[in-house]
């Protein structure tokens, strides 16, 4: 790691400066994470009296558990939908805003603020909108002949959390897409236009390839968002139900620990999530290094 060529000399000052962050990191990050690792190989009996070392049994059991596999599949399809929809909508909006130079900033103002809305609050807002008895969206769907009920129908509940999570995430993606598009030199698109390429052709052959680093970066960010930050959406609305329909992994870890009191299993799930975050972070950093090379 690089440092300054000119540095200060002091015996204890640097330690004092870095100590607060290190202490907090050790107590609230490193120690709990190691505890999760440790507990993931233990099993407690029903009364919490005996704890046995069980090796990989918790993990084996998880992957043999239909509920867990189901939760994994649910999470993956949920993330794919949230990332896909929020990036797709954001890209369309950004292309539109990029073309209208003069009012692009006005539209940016109109589109960025949902990012400030907490996922849980976004969930409650849409929960209300789709409420089967009084919600206006449910009413409209009823008019179209669809009997919406997210309390009974797993598909409806999933749609609801996808919509709420997407709604909030579009603004983030929009900002990055707009910044990416505006960084593309105008001379390129103008040259293509002079050569007779229409807007669609210009987008496919010039803008999209130049935007690909942004797309890649956003995929990682959106997957992380859908995997971890959407806990609030699920907890404040569907509570994982009906049945297991919206029981995403983060929610399941929480529920198994605090409601199921199944510590070993919850710890094993935490460890699996940790591995996922580490993998996603590694991918993100590889991308950043590539960007530096360019």
């Amino acid at each position, binding site marked *: 790691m690089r440092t300054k060529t000119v540095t*200060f000399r002091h015996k204890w000052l640097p330690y004092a400066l870095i100590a607060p962050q290190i202490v907090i990191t050790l107590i609230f990050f490193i120690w709990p994470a190691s505890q999760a690792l440790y507990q993931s190989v233990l099993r407690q009996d029903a009364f919490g009296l005996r704890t046995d070392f069980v090796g990989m049994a918790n993990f084996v059991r998880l992957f043999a558990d239909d509920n867990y596999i189901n939760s994994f599949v649910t999470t993956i399809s949920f993330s794919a939908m949230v990332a896909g929809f929020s990036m797709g909508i954001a890209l369309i909006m950004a292309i539109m805003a990029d073309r209208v130079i003069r009012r692009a900033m006005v539209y940016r103002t109109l589109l960025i603020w949902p990012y400030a809305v907490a*996922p849980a*609050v976004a969930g409650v807002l849409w929960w209300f909108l789709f409420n089967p008895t009084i919600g206006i969206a449910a009413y409209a769907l009823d008019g179209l002949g669809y009997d919406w009920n997210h309390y009974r129908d797993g598909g409806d509940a999933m749609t609801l959390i996808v919509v709420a999570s997407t709604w909030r995430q579009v603004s983030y993606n929009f900002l990055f897409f707009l910044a990416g598009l505006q960084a593309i030199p105008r001379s390129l698109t103008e040259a293509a236009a002079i050569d007779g390429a229409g807007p669609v052709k210009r987008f496919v052959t010039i803008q999209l390839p130049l935007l690909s680093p942004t797309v890649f970066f956003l995929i990682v960010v959106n997957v992380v968002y859908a995997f971890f930050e959407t806990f609030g959406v699920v907890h404040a609305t569907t509570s994982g139900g009906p049945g297991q329909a919206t029981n995403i992994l983060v929610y399941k870890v929480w529920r198994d620990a605090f409601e199921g009191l199944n510590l070993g299993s919850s710890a094993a799930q935490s460890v699996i999530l940790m591995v996922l975050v580490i993998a996603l972070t590694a991918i993100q950093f590889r991308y950043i290094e590539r960007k530096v090379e360019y």
Partner: protein
Amino acid sequence: MVERRPFLTFIQHAVLILGAAMFVFPIYLAFVASTHTAAEVSGGVPLLPGAEMIRNYSLVLGEGISAAGAPPLWIMLMNSTIMALSITIGKIVISLLSAFAVVYFKFPFRMLAFWTIFVTLMLPVEVRILPTFEVVAQLGMLNSYAGLSIPLIASATATFLFRQFFMTVPDQLTEAARIDGAGPMKFFRDILLPLSRTNLAALFVILFIYGWNQYLWPLLVTTDESYYTIVMGIQRMANAGEETPQWHLIMATAILALLPPVVVILAMQRLFVRGLVEVEK
């Protein structure tokens, strides 16, 4: 614009306006619902604001929804403010100091310290829920402002951001300060801090929103109603057991919960965008 295509331009504005309207719609409807009586809302949500705005808002702010076990909203708003500000200021202070140490000093274990901080990137609260809760419980920090904020203030991203920025500060400044006899802390206070002002402000906006919108953590560490934050408190009202949810009051709560961060973003848009892009770099 590359060429004139009036029809395309029209389509663009139409899509953008429609998109913006779709974003505002849920909030607009929540606001409308919060200005009606319970009876009016339960008969199908009206599309225009009603006359009960002042009554509903003063009710939730002053008394809360006792049936749903929620304290008055002003308490939750205050708790949210305290938590968001403690997290924001805490993160900024400890990251500034540690970035300063890592960049401007050579000392044994520097790399170890740096990696220890780096690892926090890979350990969000969500993946170590139970053990972190146990640590906080053992330290007796449940139901306290310290418990709400301190475990969240270690931040690798803020440290990286400041490190990145300090690396761009010219060495001549450091040399000049040293020749003039300034010690490290004087250099930090009189030269580095003023130079970091814009970065500080941008980070402040991002971190305030991060802190305000915390959900899982307050849910874990608070059982005492007087420490509820508004973002986690709203869920108690929406899931108030057997009782019919009082939607007009819940929506008033939702509006109050989202107003502060939205105002911050809109008022400091430039800083917000800058902060967001910097943090993710």
